[in-house]
């Protein structure tokens, strides 16, 4: 029982990353009708916002050690971060320690700008082109973006730790009256909470603001909204920026979970598309539901007891579920009629 609870918890955490990326993908598809294969790259750029802020905060002055030597026998260069010189060693070290949460503030304008630039500079030229063209151009863009990141940051993963306050794990076992341990890392719990907050904020924005109402109306019937004299294109461009920011923030907070590398966006891309298709193309609640559902199923399938019955099921479970759902509900869990069916 405790093993199942642990995997459900783990699935919720995995699912929150899938849901956040799929939410952004669906926002873009639902508003602009674009199948954005560069969305995984936006997640990766978000993670590198954490890396970049960490690098900025650890910019250092160098002094030569009188006693210690480097690997060539020369005096060792002792690095002292400028923030420690300016604010004192303790405050400076704390600022560096909190680089990842601080990167949220850094990433929002960066990701909005990248989103606007992508949409205005490239993707808007492909609105009326077939989905195959859109996939090709956005996939090409994803490769370009990851090569740019590789050029500046190298191919090796870069450790980006969570604040030391969140090191360790919380044991749910005693809380649930279990005899055994049910420990789960603090930072992954933070990630789950953060994702829930972002998902809630996006839904609240669409549901409870005039801007959101117009966007929802545009998603349902673009032409009629246009005939009412509303510049829906401008609002959709803004939504592209929001979707980029959502993917970016998912990446920022993911950086301590797995050290960022230039390829991490591609690792999530295919899974996220499966999530979108299972949830139903264009359905925001569907994307979130499918994200969490597939995350939990993937975690449960990796249990030794399950793998003992069906070896290798952990590698294919998501695709098996996708096939079953598409056979029984061709529009996905919450897909609407008419979306991608013309």
């Amino acid at each position, binding site marked *: 029982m405790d093993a199942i609870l642990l995997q459900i918890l783990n699935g919720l955490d995995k699912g929150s990353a899938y849901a956040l990326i799929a939410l952004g993908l669906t926002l873009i598809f639902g508003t602009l009708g674009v199948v954005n294969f560069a969305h995984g790259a936006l997640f990766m750029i978000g993670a590198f916002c954490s890396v970049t802020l960490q690098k900025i905060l650890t910019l250092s002055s160098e002094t030569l050690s009188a006693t210690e030597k480097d*690997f060539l026998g020369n005096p*060792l260069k002792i690095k002292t971060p400028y923030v420690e010189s300016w604010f004192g060693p303790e405050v400076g070290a704390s600022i560096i320690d909190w680089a990842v949460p601080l990167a949220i503030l850094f990433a929002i304008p960066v990701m909005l700008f990248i989103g606007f630039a992508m949409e205005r500079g490239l993707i808007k030229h492909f609105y009326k082109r077939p989905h195959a063209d859109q996939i090709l151009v956005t996939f090409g863009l994803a490769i370009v973006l990851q090569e740019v990141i*590789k050029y500046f940051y190298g*191919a090796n993963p870069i450790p980006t730790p969570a604040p030391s306050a969140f090191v360790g794990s919380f044991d749910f076992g005693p809380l649930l009256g279990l005899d055994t341990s049910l*420990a789960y890392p603090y930072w992954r719990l933070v990630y789950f909470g953060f994702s829930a907050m972002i998902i809630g904020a996006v839904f609240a924005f669409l549901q409870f603001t005039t801007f959101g109402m117009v966007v929802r109306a545009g998603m349902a019937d673009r032409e009629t909204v246009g005939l009412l004299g509303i510049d829906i294109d401008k609002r959709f461009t803004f939504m592209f920026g929001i979707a980029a920011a959502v993917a970016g923030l998912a990446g920022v907070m993911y950086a301590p979970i797995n050290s960022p590398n230039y390829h991490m966006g591609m690792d999530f891309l295919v899974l996220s598309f499966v999530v979108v298709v299972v949830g139903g193309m264009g359905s925001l609640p569907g994307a979130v539901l499918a994200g969490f559902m597939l995350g939990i199923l993937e975690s449960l399938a990796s249990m030794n007891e399950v793998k003992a019955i069906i070896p290798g099921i952990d590698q294919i479970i998501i695709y098996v579920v996708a096939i079953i759902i598409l056979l029984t509900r061709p529009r996905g869990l919450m897909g609407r009629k008419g979306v991608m069916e013309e």
Partner: protein
Amino acid sequence: MSFSNLTRRGLIKTSAVAGAGLALPTYLRADGHSGFTNAPTGDTVTLGFNVPQTGPYAEEGLDELRAQELAVQHLNGEGDGGMMNTFSSKALKGNGILGKKVAFVTGDTQTKSDAARASAKSMIEKDGAVMINGGSSSGVAVAVQGLCQEAGVIFMAGLTHSNDTTGKDRKANGFRHFFNGYMSAAALAPVLKNAYGSDRKAYHLTADYTWGWTQQESIAAATEAMGWETVNNVLTPLASTDFSSYIAPVLNSGADVLVLNHYGGNMVNSLTNAVQFDLLNKEVNGKKFEIVVPLYSELMAAGAGKNVEGVIGSMNWNWQLQDEGSKAFVKSFGEKYGRPPSNSAHTCYVQTLLYADAVEREGTFNPCGVVEALEDFEFDGLGNGPVLYRGDDHQCFKDVLVMKGKENPTNEYDTLEIVEVTPRAQVEYPHDHPMFAGGDLGKCNPGA
């Protein structure tokens, strides 16, 4: 279908072009004058460096390339000579190889077997490479080794740690300077026993491919022989990025040691995830929980950051070694590139020198001559003490390093410390050991 455009003249032209195209590889392969593939005829000889230049191991490939460029410089008499000054064989004079200036071409393996074979083939057939050196994957090494055997050139494998490379997939034209899974396990077991005792329960996570399987088999056998119990072995897909669902059940499994048979990005992520679950601060069966990473590399340790602290693993070579050969190489490499070399860089550098030395000693570029010169060759001065290239399976035997993640690193290169240098005798095994069974070197193939 219509044949209205087909003319007699067109047919002859097409046939001539097709015939020439088909004959070209044969022409390139068969050097009738010398009797072996790509016999150098001018005043240069071309070596092929096949390393990952793109993909997840690009950083490691770049370091291999740096080392190989340095080796070429030293062979051509440029720079300080590096390990040529400490090498026990004195056949190399710094005037190229057999008086021919050394040139090189590079290929990108992409850490994919098919891409690696294609780039090696291109270097052999188009660029006239007389040997292929490097790479960072056992799958790639086995694939390229097979190709070189067919093409009739020497293959010096790079970072390949699977038992299979010089076991069931061994080839007469291939040699491996790097150690293997069995040797890692043989070096690690006594150190693990001293550090953690002989009454331990180990839970293995293993990358689901050739290297992972042989590494797990080796370390499980070695630790069981000293009294450890293997509680479970879970195969993880190579494409996995998040290992949390595999690590979550470990604490309640009764195990008090987690063995991560992972390398590269898998190792960085699984170790990071294990540390997130706070395993290293837990107590199970009245003992402190421990993590073991059988194969370390400096670049991956840097990727895992503070998570490697206190974690034991093994390495082929490390820049902190204090023998004269290692010091000469570190100085040479460090002054040129401003960083210490990785163990894959060391392997590729040494293999380039060893190939050149074998050619000089034998007086020919003929791969069968090189094979003869390298088989059962014993030498010193290239790091890790006295070394043997065993003729039976073309596996190199030398001291193996047991490493531990450093508690307080002073810089980005200072992530690991040497715990023990395990003597060569302790990691040797008979060439027909069951873990290496099923292979046959076959006969050396000169190509033409």
